[in-house]
């Protein structure tokens, strides 16, 4: 029996967290994602599944509560928005270094600084290139609908525990705030079937004690730890790339866009096709690992690629790396909280490639 609900993106994250069998949510209010914590507090998940929900004193508090609960091998989720996610970076670096699973939702708003509360994709670099100190990667999922806000919470936990790595849902204020129909997945067990041999839950007589740490003062040991991380990231690159193709088969020009921008570009492709332009859209669903191979294949087919982002040009660097100079790559973006219209995107295609 399908369970359909009309939900905001933020509410879908909260409901999905309970249904995914999360043990705990720790968070701190910030616009435009406060509905996650509000929904959870109102829903009393402790009575539904035993899930713990706690409003922390700050984002520093929240991410370190995540660190603590994750080290006990529990399913932990948190959410915030750009300025708050900046405060998460120290904790995320420790969590990645200590190889702990968790899901972090970033409902991105315009920056830099306090910026604006309107939607943006200006945190692409921060999300995909590490974000905090040290050589590490988050697995980054980019939902483009309220449905995916729900589905990716479940997927996020699966990836987080498979690889013992933090997973970020890189959303934005548009998807967080808009309401759409969502088909909710069934309630999952809180217990995980994943390996729990590493958890810090108290040293039983039948096992060696567990120490969750990112510290190794011996540089040779630290280098080997980094090698282990890099091997894990390579494996993730091999196995977890996800993307969606929209009207790419006969495309002469390609749009590359994720999240909200991809939704806008989907409409832009339809408008452009109506005008006789053969435009396709490639939507990366995972931003790390990035669908570089698929974009390189498209570079052999099309005459130009436009990276459409709600920022001043960040993902375009990954598109260019994927394309290896085979074809012209340009950027179109609105930013600071401005959202491009599909017509603007079509005009950008025309002025960049077609009228030239």
């Amino acid at each position, binding site marked *: 029996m399908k369970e359909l609900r009309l939900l905001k993106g933020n509410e879908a994250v909260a409901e999905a967290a309970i249904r995914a069998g999360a043990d*705990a949510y720790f968070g701190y209010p910030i616009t435009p994602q406060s509905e996650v914590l509000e929904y959870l507090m109102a829903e009393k998940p402790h009575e539904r599944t035993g899930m*713990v929900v*706690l409003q922390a004193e700050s984002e520093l508090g929240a991410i370190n509560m995540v660190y603590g609960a994750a080290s006990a091998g529990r399913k932990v989720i948190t959410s915030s928005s750009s300025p708050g996610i900046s405060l998460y970076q120290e904790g995320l670096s*420790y969590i990645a270094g200590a190889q702990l699973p968790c899901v972090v939702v970033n409902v991105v708003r315009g920056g830099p600084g306090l910026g604006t509360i309107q939607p943006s994709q200006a945190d692409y670099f921060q999300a995909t290139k590490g974000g905090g100190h040290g050589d590490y990667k988050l697995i980054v999922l980019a939902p483009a609908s309220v449905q995916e806000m729900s589905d990716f919470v479940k997927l996020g936990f699966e990836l987080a525990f498979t690889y013992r790595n933090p997973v970020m849902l890189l959303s934005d204020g548009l998807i967080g705030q808009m309401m759409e129909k969502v088909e909710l997945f069934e309630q999952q067990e809180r217990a995980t079937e994943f390996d729990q041999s590493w958890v810090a839950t*108290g*040293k039983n007589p039948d096992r060696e*004690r567990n*120490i969750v*740490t990112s*510290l190794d003062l011996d540089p040779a040991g630290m280098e080997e730890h980094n090698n282990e991380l890099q091997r894990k990231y390579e494996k993730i690159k091999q196995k977890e790339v996800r993307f969606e193709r929209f009207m790419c088969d006969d495309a002469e020009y390609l749009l590359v866009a994720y999240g909200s921008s991809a939704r806008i570009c989907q409409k832009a492709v339809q408008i452009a096709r109506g005008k006789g332009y053969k435009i396709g859209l490639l939507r990366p669903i995972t931003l790390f690992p990035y669908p570089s191979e698929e974009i390189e294949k498209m570079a052999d087919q099309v005459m130009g690629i436009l990276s459409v982002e709600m920022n001043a040009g960040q993902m375009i660097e990954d598109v260019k790396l994927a394309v290896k100079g085979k074809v012209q790559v340009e950027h179109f973006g609105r930013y600071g909280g401005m959202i491009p219209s599909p017509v603007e995107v079509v005009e950008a295609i025309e002025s960049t490639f077609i009228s030239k």
Partner: protein
Amino acid sequence: MTMEIKDIIKDENLVYKKTSLMTDRTLSYCPGCGHGTTHRIIMEVIEELGIQEYVVGVAPVGCSVLAYDFMDVDWLQAPHGRAPAVATGLKRVMPDKYIFTYQGDGDLAAIGTSETIHACNRGEHITIIFINNGIYGMTGGQMAPTTLPGMVSSTSPYGRDVETMGSPIKMTELVAHLPGTYYVTRQSVHKPGNVRRAKKAIQRAFENQKLRKGLSFVEIVSNCNSGWKMTPVQANKWMEENMFPYYPLGDVKMDGELLPVK
């Protein structure tokens, strides 16, 4: 008849032995430092209570960052100052376990003030062991929030000037006034009698976790002979003469009730 080693190693001759819950790693602390003694009495308490398999410790950043090398329980190493938040996460998902943090004064009273105050205020059912030696030891003797007025450190080379650097913060009295704390005490480990009292305090602080009535906070006023540029004996004397008047020893709050100031 000559006496051999096997004649000496007998139960009735045993006057001291290493706590079984201390590992065989050589302590990384300076000779004379209070960390080693404090580690030992925490592990004695855990051993005597028989709770090793239910304990998770949270290590700070500072001299005791490697505390997990010496104390034989499960551990988590926290970012600087964040141990009470990390301990909150652990305790909230494992309410039946014994969770404790082990923090220095830079960690707890400077960078971690927010996490400390709010964990105390929420009344998390955890134990905080707070080692206050009035200086940053690990980084080489810089001024701490607890450095005494006029005290020389590498970042207050002419002595702490309270006009520009503020006064030393009394975290123990501060957290005692929060409704979330159930037991707040200040102890030391520089003399046998003090060690016995400190051990009793730590035992109470762990046992309180079963009551689920709030946070137990144990400050240990300690020395830092390296940072203070003193011999261990000089440092202990200086501590008695200068630290104890500012940071008086004794219980501040017991069973949720503030005790009269002596």
